[in-house]
């Protein structure tokens, strides 16, 4: 069991992640990037889903209370799962901590990399609605079924937000739950049942008007929006959430079942720190800590000695069966992305100025190619340009444009994807950097409806990738003024690359309600891949 401790060297670190490396305990000062771990015997390195970020204050106490300094690195659920299954986490981390190991366990070879799993806490994925909407729909007692919810969704009687099932476990759990409940099957879904339930899923998700790559961003976006009635997310997130007008949500616990996250703290088989792991796991399950988790993070305790408090209600939650084959899980995600969800409209504003010459333009071509399906990994396939999506590529240098627009068809996407790849392959780098002319063109393109695109603004977004400061055309201030006249909420997701003007790029993201992704250390391809979760 311990034989693989030293097997993983820097060579395995190719799987570069967009992780925010964060030393919860002070122990781990120089951590970051690809430095091989050099920790004291009391440091436990944990690769975690961003969902557990709210435990940081508690984990900081583990150093004093349990003698364990926890060093957390965050990653997306699916990226993390692939990293663990491929062995990329071996030697680099001692443990993993996602909201669930279910998808991970379905990947070939993953189980052998995992040692002891210890459940720490529990949260079901349910629906949270504004009080007024819950009352209107007759769900203010908290009682409804997914079938009821799906019926109301199909009739557009409410709207909701949910994370992308390929990026975030809450979205994936919600998708599995809804599919299992709407399907007529009483057992775990297989591919035939998924095909059969797809039309009903399409009705259900026609009411989804907000998506996100992470639960945190989803909650932030929800707080800003007055036109989204609710969210499907963890009970723990929904209990703490307030609407734009500051009122708490009404939680609806579907009577036909839920999928529950159980947050297993999981030792990697390659880690030598078994005892240290045992100490942390045992401490986290002491009644005092369990109560603190419940009080501060609104998750249910896992130890039977600590009973859930009044916030959680008393109704038993039926657990829906979860697929036991990866093919079924992947088929469900694929159906959601390519058939079920409303299509996306995306514009990529791409810097092709002279400074992009060489490695940088190559990285850009590679990143675009990956999104045309060339990345064969599951997360790569889930982040490709989707069937029914309309994509505009808008290069800029001294001037902006011209824009090229592609619509991926509902069936047989390969030909259009090849055309996008061919377009990317011939990009060349020369000239100045007219960032804001490019960005303005992007907004004008989607506003004028050029190149088609259905579904209004809900799933429309802009990606801005630039490697330097604005040198030509309009300024940030010009753009900000223009943006404010639009009355739009189309976000710009900014990719920091090369010598980006970080402060100004953050302004763009804040102005448009987007987000910033850093590709200066990690690869451009992985930044693009992460952004796809938000589109």
């Amino acid at each position, binding site marked *: 069991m311990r034989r693989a401790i030293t097997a993983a060297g820097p060579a395995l670190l190719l799987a570069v992640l967009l992780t925010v490396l964060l030393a919860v305990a002070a122990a781990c000062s120089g951590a970051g990037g690809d430095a091989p771990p050099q920790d004291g015997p009391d440091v436990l390195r944990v690769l975690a889903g961003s969902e557990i970020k709210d435990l940081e204050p508690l984990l900081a106490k583990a150093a004093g209370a349990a003698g364990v300094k926890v060093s957390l690195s965050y990653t997306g659920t699916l990226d993390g799962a692939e990293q663990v299954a491929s062995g990329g986490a071996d030697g680099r981390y001692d443990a993993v901590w996602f909201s669930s190991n279910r998808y991970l366990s379905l990947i070939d070879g993953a189980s052998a990399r995992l040692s002891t799993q210890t*459940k720490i806490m529990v949260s079901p994925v349910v629906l949270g609605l504004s009080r007024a909407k819950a009352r209107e729909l007759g769900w203010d007692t908290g009682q409804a079924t997914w079938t009821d919810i799906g019926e109301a969704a199909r009739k557009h009687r409410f709207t909701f937000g949910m994370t992308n099932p390929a990026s975030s476990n809450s979205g994936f759990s919600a998708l599995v739950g809804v599919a299992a409940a709407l399907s007529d099957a009483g057992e*775990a879904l297989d591919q035939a049942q998924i095909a059969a339930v797809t039309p009903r899923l399409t009705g259900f998700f026609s009411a989804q008007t907000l998506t996100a790559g992470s639960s945190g961003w989803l909650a932030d976006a929800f707080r800003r929006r007055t036109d989204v009635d609710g969210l499907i997310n963890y009970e723990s997130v929904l209990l703490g959430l307030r609407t734009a007008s500051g009122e708490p949500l009404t939680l609806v616990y579907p009577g036909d*079942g839920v999928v529950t996250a159980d947050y297993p703290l999981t030792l990697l088989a390659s880690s030598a720190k078994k005892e240290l792991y*045992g100490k942390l796991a045992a401490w986290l399950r002491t009644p005092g800590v369990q109560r603190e988790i419940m009080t501060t993070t609104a998750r249910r305790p896992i130890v039977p000695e600590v009973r859930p408090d009044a916030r959680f209600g008393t109704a038993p939650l039926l657990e829906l069966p979860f697929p036991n084959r990866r093919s*079924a899980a992947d088929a469900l995600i694929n159906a959601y992305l390519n058939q079920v969800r409303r299509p996306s409209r995306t514009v990529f504003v791409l810097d092709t100025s002279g400074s992009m010459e060489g490695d940088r333009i190559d990285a850009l071509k590679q990143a675009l190619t990956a999104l045309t399906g060339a990345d064969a990994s599951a997360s790569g396939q889930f982040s490709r340009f989707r069937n029914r999506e309309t994509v505009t590529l808008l290069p800029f240098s001294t001037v902006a444009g011209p824009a090229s627009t592609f619509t991926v068809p509902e069936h047989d996407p390969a030909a259009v994807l090849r055309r996008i790849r061919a377009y990317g392959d011939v990009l060349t780098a020369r000239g100045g950097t007219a960032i804001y002319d490019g960005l303005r063109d992007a907004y004008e393109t989607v506003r004028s409806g050029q190149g088609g695109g259905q579904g209004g603004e809900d799933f429309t977004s802009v990606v801005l990738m630039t490697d330097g400061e604005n040198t030509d055309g309009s300024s940030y201030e010009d753009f900000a003024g223009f943006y404010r006249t639009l009355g739009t909420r189309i976000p710009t997701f900014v990719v920091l690359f090369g010598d980006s003007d970080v402060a100004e790029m953050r302004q763009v993201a804040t102005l448009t309600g987007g987000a910033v992704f850093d590709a200066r250390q990690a690869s451009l391809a992985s930044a693009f891949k992460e952004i796809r979760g938000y589109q």
Partner: protein
Amino acid sequence: MKRWIGIGLALALGAAVVLALLLGNGGDGGGGEQRTLTTVRGVIGSEKKPFFDDPAVRAAFARHGLRVDVDTAGSREIATTVDLRPYDFAFPSSVPAAEKIRQARRIARTYSPFYSPMAVATFQPIVDVLEKAGVVRDSGAGYQVLDLRRFLDLVATGTRWDALPGNTSYRARKRVLLTTTDVRTSNSAAMYLAATSYVANGDDVVTSRAQVAEVARTVAPLFLDQGYSESSTEAPFEDYLALGIGKTPMVVIYEAQYAARLFAGGGAIRPDMRLIYPAPTVLSKHTLVPLTDRAAEVGRLLQEDPEFARLAARYGFRTADPKVFADLVATTKAPVPASLVDVVEPPAYDRLEELVSTVEQRYLAGAKPSS
């Protein structure tokens, strides 16, 4: 690293923590004298780890000059893929797995110091519903049983909870199935497979390949149709204890898991929880296979020394002397039967392995077995 072992290992997982602390405080005060101990290393099924981590057990071994360090692995892995070279003994949770190792290594003698019947942890409303359906009945020996023949019939027709007549208390649309661990890795699921295969084979132990193919058709849905299942026996039982009837209305466990919680008190077993037994059931006989001479002493102590029997009983295990377990049941007033009547033998290792492999192939095939 060694310095942690005293504290670190004592802080084992789960309710074992509670047990360990209770026993540790009440108990032997540690055998702290600094004499040299002979270290014996074993690879064991994970359900026995809290026992080996217990300070009282460690102290008892220390009084015999021994220090026992254990790693855990699934019983099937212990019999097949685990490299046994670093270990002095293997201690899987079933006779078939132990027999496989014994034969492969030509070992004369094994030790079966404790055992636990396979049981089903459930809730009173579920018992009521299944009684009405004729699936749960009284054994006539002071406990209730899940009639596996009737249960297999229910599974064969794809019955859902909300389709059971007179069921007003558990209106779930999901199928009536017992929650188990992953049969590909976990012994408790394999023991459930052993019991159900006996019934599916016309009340006879599966002994031939032809029977395996036939029986697998009936029993594979018991595992496949559940959907995702966990790898360790403790995980679904924890769900049962913490999340209750909604997630886990019925879970296959070792009786010891339930009994240990009852013996320890602490309220983990709530008033509406019930322990019933499959009829027939099988015994999970924890069998120690010594690979070196010094491990034989560990096996002998566990099997013959009353102190170890007493300690094992606190973890819910039954031992050779039935009085030890019975006394604990009496003093704690635990609702656990003194003895079980309807017990059958599991298939031999090779047949059981073939059964598991056949189910495994159906996972890989992705096709739903006809049910």
